[in-house]
């Protein structure tokens, strides 16, 4: 398939390793990968704050960078940015061209589960990983049944990783409680965000896992900062990095 990468600003600027892993793994799976120019941010920090006027220019700039780009899918290694992009594109532009872009948007896990599943992994990873089930991915993008729901359970994240030999998947207590990042929440509500992050980091560390693995870079950035502050013996990895290692 021909895939256009949607690399959110946070990944581009602060966690390029996540972008690189995403690119490499998609290439290893035989896809042709391009990076459309002119992407900055999906507008989430602004719309999440209620500031729709401030978000318009940013959102439309991102949308324009995908309009007319020839590809089968647009893949993003960040769940909450993807959700925000979808919603914001709808909000600011409901043209057919915009719809065509929206229809092709996939979060990486979603893409690997629903669209182009991985036939087999090549390398074993002998490691225990604690999965970070970030809110937007599970509750807005349906990557897994949230713990509140009594619907038939499914979990795309675990399903994608379960093909990797040697990988031992565990979950923290309060398995999908929010980590407290919440975009500007981390700045606006410092004390609560700090405490949520601390509780989450400890819950992951208490599993005895070597890595916290997640699909949302912003949560991972937040948890990583907390893990290091708390000096816990665990490290964070994006799901793309784990998959790339196993291919």
């Amino acid at each position, binding site marked *: 398939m021909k895939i256009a990468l949607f*690399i959110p*600003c946070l990944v*581009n*600027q*602060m*966690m*390029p*390793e996540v*972008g*690189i892993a995403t*690119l490499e793994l998609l290439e290893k799976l035989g896809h042709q990968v391009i990076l459309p120019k002119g992407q*900055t*941010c999906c*507008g989430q*920090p*602004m719309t*999440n*704050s*209620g*500031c*729709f*006027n*401030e*978000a318009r*220019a*940013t959102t439309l*700039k991102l949308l324009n960078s995908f309009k007319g780009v020839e590809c089968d899918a647009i893949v993003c290694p960040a769940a909450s940015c993807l959700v925000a992009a979808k919603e914001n594109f709808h909000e600011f532009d409901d043209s057919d061209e915009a719809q065509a872009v929206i229809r092709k948007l996939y979060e990486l896990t979603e893409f690997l589960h629903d669209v182009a599943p991985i036939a087999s992994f090549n390398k074993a990873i002998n490691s225990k990983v604690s999965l970070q089930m970030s*809110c*937007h991915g599970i*509750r*807005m993008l349906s990557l897994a049944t*949230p713990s*509140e*729901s*009594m*619907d038939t359970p499914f979990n795309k994240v675990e399903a994608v990783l379960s093909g990797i030999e040697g990988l031992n998947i565990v979950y923290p207590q309060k398995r999908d*409680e*929010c980590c*407290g*990042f*919440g975009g*500007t*929440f*981390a*700045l*606006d*509500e*410092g*004390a*609560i965000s*700090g*405490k*949520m*992050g601390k509780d989450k980091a400890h819950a992951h560390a208490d599993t005895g896992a070597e890595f916290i693995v997640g699909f949302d870079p912003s949560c991972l950035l*937040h948890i*990583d*900062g*907390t893990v*290091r*502050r708390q000096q816990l013996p665990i490290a964070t990895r994006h799901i793309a990095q784990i998959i790339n290692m196993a291919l």
Partner: protein
Amino acid sequence: MTQTQTKTHAYKADIFCQDESRVDWHSKALWTLREKRDRAAKQLPEWEQLRTLGSQIKLHTLSNLGQYLETFEANCLANGIQVHWAKDATEHNQIAYDILSRHKVKKLVKSKSMLTEECHMNPYLEQRGIEVIDTDLGERIIQLAKQPPSHIVVPAIHMKKEEVGELFHEKINTQAGASDPTYLTRAARAHLREQFLSADAAMTGVNMAVADQGAVIVCTNEGNADMGANLPGVQIHSMGIDKLVPDMDSAAVILRTLARNATGQPITTYSSIYKAPKSGGEMHVIIVDNGRSDMLQDNILAESLKCIRCGGCLNTCPVYRRSGGFSYNYTIPGPIGIAVGASDDDSNSIPWACTLCGSCSYVCPTKVPLDKIIARHRRLKAEQGQLPYGKRHYMPLVGKLMANETALNCSMSIARTSLKILPHSLLKPFAGAWGKYRELPAGADSSFEAWFKRNREQK
């Protein structure tokens, strides 16, 4: 906009967080309720269908509210119930006072009513010489402590049993140092029994008002609403217009989820249906709007009126559990408190006391889309120029920066470099709240875009 005296949620939460062991205790007490709820819900294979039905019943009733209110009133009147309409809190309190003063009531026993809290009725009546006794155990505790409720179902959840023991010792003469819940509950019961026997009138809230029956349903675990309504001659039931359901079948759907979602019980110990005055007595129903029909005008905000006040969203909310009920600047705290109270919050901060994690929306037995409602409040506040202080200043700048690639690349490259080369202790003060609670991220060597250019485009 003028700066007001009301403190922001973040300010109050910061104070609450200073005692971390108390935060952990509070969070755990509420999470226990969430776990009980999960177990109870899991036992019903049709749980998710019940949620869908509950949501549809409430939406249907709200969409035809005028008609159902009229039917309800007509049936109440036919049953001998006196019906009163109040457009706001003041009118509600006046109506209640009129009824009570007509009967020369000196003491009113009250049960289960967040609405009277919302209307600030107790002080209103007390100023006019009527003693008001809250009879739900939790309500009585906070009334004796002169505090507002911190939760809608377990209003004294913020108090430890030792603190209740101390309070009871001081107010109702229990043994000093006693903290055994059974002992304290018994003592409270004896104390309340005296109140019931000496009261001249009783008032309760309403869990559901059944239109085709002209009846109200009141759910309690302690049976105190019934003690109140059955003893004195005058009984008053205050309800918001959002409490209507069409018939007993729809009431049954909601009864099945209410207690399960609140405390994990299959049903409340008492679910009493009142549909006529007792012989020789009077039964009044006060139907209150107080801003609810305004909310109905907005498609998104309107859905907050589907709420059946089970408290489930509070128990699951990671922010509420860690910041406590008194941080919300509204009688009702937590997600539903933000949904129905945001426009009353002078500090313009409670819509931002939320990470939009969405857990509340999934826990809700009537599918109130709380996260969407909260996001809607943010937008409305922003449009009305009522952003919290800091946001008002930095958001336009963030908007400009993000929309400008060169500026963004430039500033981020400076940020990356500083993160790499400067000692983090030097950067922390600049990183504000982030640096206070977390280590700063390690600066990456280059952006992904630059890496891509070097590694893919130049090949």
